[in-house]
């Protein structure tokens, strides 16, 4: 597992080296900070995705939950509610959607793919209905400072990302909850027979994913200074890609957040580099798709040889 994580770090380093050689603008402090800042939202969503995938599930609804949480946040701010109230509402919407996903999976017995596919459509539709399809904007400066402000030279969104990763890493590696995430993904029946409340914890895992979507929604709304019902399109695919490139097995039972962070950075660096090189956004899609498949293919082949 360690060797594999090392592998993705090498992949990221090689990618950076190549871009550095190809374009002088890549390796500047301002560009690198820009890359990390652009990566932060996908990286945060991918935290929740990592929890869910390690537990043997999948969450296709993260992008739609980002939109719905953001719209809730924006609407309350627009209505003049104080920032803490609006932020709390965004969290409540995100966690609520996540817990509903979890209940459908663990109590309702639906396959995670189906339950979250439904939520993907429902949450997106709710955001569109609620806003009548229009962006919500016109807030005062409070929220905006999250995106414009910085701690030292580190931009606000990156600070949020770092805090999220540190806390989530501790939860995943140092708590009983984290242990059960791995155990459920590794062997759900054995975990249940060991007396672990599997349904409760599975529901909570999707709740964590919803919470991460809400955090991402707050950062996104702050950066755009408006909440859009069509925000977060395709976020689920970016988050799954970051998680899987980071070495988390879609079969469940293994994976790390450090790997996911590297995976998200690879995606971000690649996008940024292709932009700097002037590659058209159409062609970018092809390159990124190829990188995702290639990274997982290498991983799979390595794994086969290890056994």
């Amino acid at each position, binding site marked *: 597992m360690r060797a594999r994580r090392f592998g993705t770090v090498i992949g990221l380093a090689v990618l950076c080296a190549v871009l550095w050689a190809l374009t002088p603008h890549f390796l500047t402090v301002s560009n690198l900070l820009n890359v990390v800042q652009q990566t932060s939202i996908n990286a945060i969503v991918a935290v929740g995705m990592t929890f869910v995938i390690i537990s043997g599930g999948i969450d296709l609804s993260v992008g739609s939950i980002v939109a719905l949480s953001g719209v809730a946040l924006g609407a309350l701010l627009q209505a003049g509610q104080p920032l803490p109230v609006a932020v709390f509402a965004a969290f409540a919407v995100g966690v609520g959607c996540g817990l509903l996903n979890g209940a459908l999976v663990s109590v309702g017995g639906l396959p995670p793919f189906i339950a979250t596919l439904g939520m993907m459509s429902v949450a997106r539709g709710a955001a569109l209905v609620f806003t009548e399809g229009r962006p919500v904007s016109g807030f005062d400066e409070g929220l905006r400072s999250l995106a414009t402000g910085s701690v030292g030279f580190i931009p606000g969104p990156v600070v949020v990302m770092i805090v999220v990763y540190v806390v989530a890493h501790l939860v995943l590696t140092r*708590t009983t909850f984290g242990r059960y995430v*791995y*155990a459920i993904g590794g062997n759900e*029946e*054995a975990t*249940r027979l*060991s*007396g*672990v409340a599997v349904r409760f914890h599975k529901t909570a895992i999707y709740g964590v994913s919803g919470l991460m979507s809400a955090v991402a929604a707050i950062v996104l709304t702050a950066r755009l200074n408006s909440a859009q019902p069509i925000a977060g399109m395709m976020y689920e695919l970016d988050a799954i890609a970051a998680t899987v490139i980071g070495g988390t097995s879609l079969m469940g039972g293994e994976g790390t957040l450090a790997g996911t962070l590297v995976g998200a950075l690879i995606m971000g660096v690649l996008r940024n580099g292709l932009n700097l090189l002037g590659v058209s956004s159409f062609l970018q899609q092809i390159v990124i798709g190829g990188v995702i498949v290639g990274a997982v293919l290498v991983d799979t082949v390595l794994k086969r040889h290890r056994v």
Partner: protein
Amino acid sequence: MTTAESQEGRTDPGRGAQAATVLEMHGIRKAFPGVVALDGVDLTLDAGEVHMLLGENGAGKSTLMKILSGAYRKDAGEIRILGPSTLREPQGRLEHGRETTALGASRTVDIQGPRDALALGIRIIYQELNLVPHLSVAENIFLGAAPTRWLGVIDWRRLSEMTSRLLNDLGMDIAPATPLHRLSLAQRQMVEIAKALKDRASILVMDEPTSALTSREVDQLFALIARLVARGVAIVYITHRLDEVYRIGHRVTVLRDGRHITTKLLSEVTVAELVRLMANRDLGDHFPRQRTTPGKELLRVEQLGRRGALCDISFCLRAGEVVGIAGLLGAGRSELARVLAGADRSDAGRILCDNNVVTFRTPADAIRRGIGLLPEDRKAEGLVAGLTVARNLALPHGRQLARFGFLPGRCEERFAEPVVKDLRVKATATQPVRLLSGGNQQKVVLGKWLAGDARIFIFDEPTRGVDVGAKVEIYNLMNRLTASGAGIIMISSELPELLGMSDRILVMRRGRIQAEFSAAGATQERVLSAALGLASPAPSGVEGPVPSDPGNAVGVEG
């Protein structure tokens, strides 16, 4: 009693002329890590005979058939098959067997996989049928082999004709276009047989084909078998129902502990002899059971039932006692274990722990009452293979180890190390359990409950796939547990182990408790007879049924 006797059974008065030997398996050996499943087993099969293959659970019947079908590869031994030239058939026709004696010498074959076995004309009908419910009978029979016109378009008319001809040939009255899911279980079984016989099949293996059939369906199946035999197909028939053995069998081979015990004409052997041959064995293994005087009652089960699995189960378990549960596969033993451990719900009767009625909604409820389950399939139910030894051991104890949900650094390893040392698990606490041997994995599953405050242990096949050394360690551990006041329910398919380690033995059959024996009153033959549903050879040795349930006497099932 020796393999030499098998040579005498070459002619059968019931079948008239001398039949050709279509299959010879000689000196077959197969070992799995820690267990020798087959050791020098012989089996010969004549054209047009039904050869019964008998043995207890784990005697090696399935392993032998899996070697024949190419699912496993043999470690040693020789398989000879009559030359294929005599058996080649046009598709969809069943007229072989007539000329099987005509020509062709047998030759040694190397069956490397299922494809080889198929090419040699070997077909196996498993207990679970491999059919597609939403396709028609014809589509199922010719799945992947349907007649086509150009570009792979299925020639429906020819398919229908071929199917009709095949079904007529076999005397089956089923319309080719019927969707499979409309058929009864017996009809589906016939479709499976037709599928197996659609091209040149000379050897047909049937593994307990009647276990799910009604008696009229069984008659239909036997009529079909008689027709196949008349055509010269050689049939290996595995069953636990001794009445069937005499109804359709010509010869019988008994396996025991992976060894060939005997091959005889059925006209020369009695039921009692067969039971003795299946059960009897050298009691060379020693079981270090140290019996203690039973203490207070830990667990009482009253008229427990679960639809389709358990019916009217009543018994009790006392401190310091090992209660063994015997029975054949599918008798409901593991189902009982799962209900007692809270893994499945019961729908009748009640369970009492320390004289309090308890309801188990989840395994956690049972664990709180001090019940620990060692599941039958440790890989599927006992362990999280990717997690370390320490984390597996700590899994049921997360709540006790954690402070406000947080696990202090290395607390699982500190928790696990004494257990690892105590059970002599040959691994470190930080190794993934995936890398451990069967015996060591089993010790880890045991350790999950030893480390807690379990007092009622349910051991489902505790020594399966475990080497001899680890077996003895597990027995010693059982002694230690009972000496310290715990009670153990032990399910085992190994009769010597059950007899050697239990204080009482319950025999289950078809979801019920068929009989109860004391350690002194139990013999392998009696236990096996009860499990098979036969009258006990010595009813005087049978103790009274448990007090609360007078209807549970021996032979209720008839």
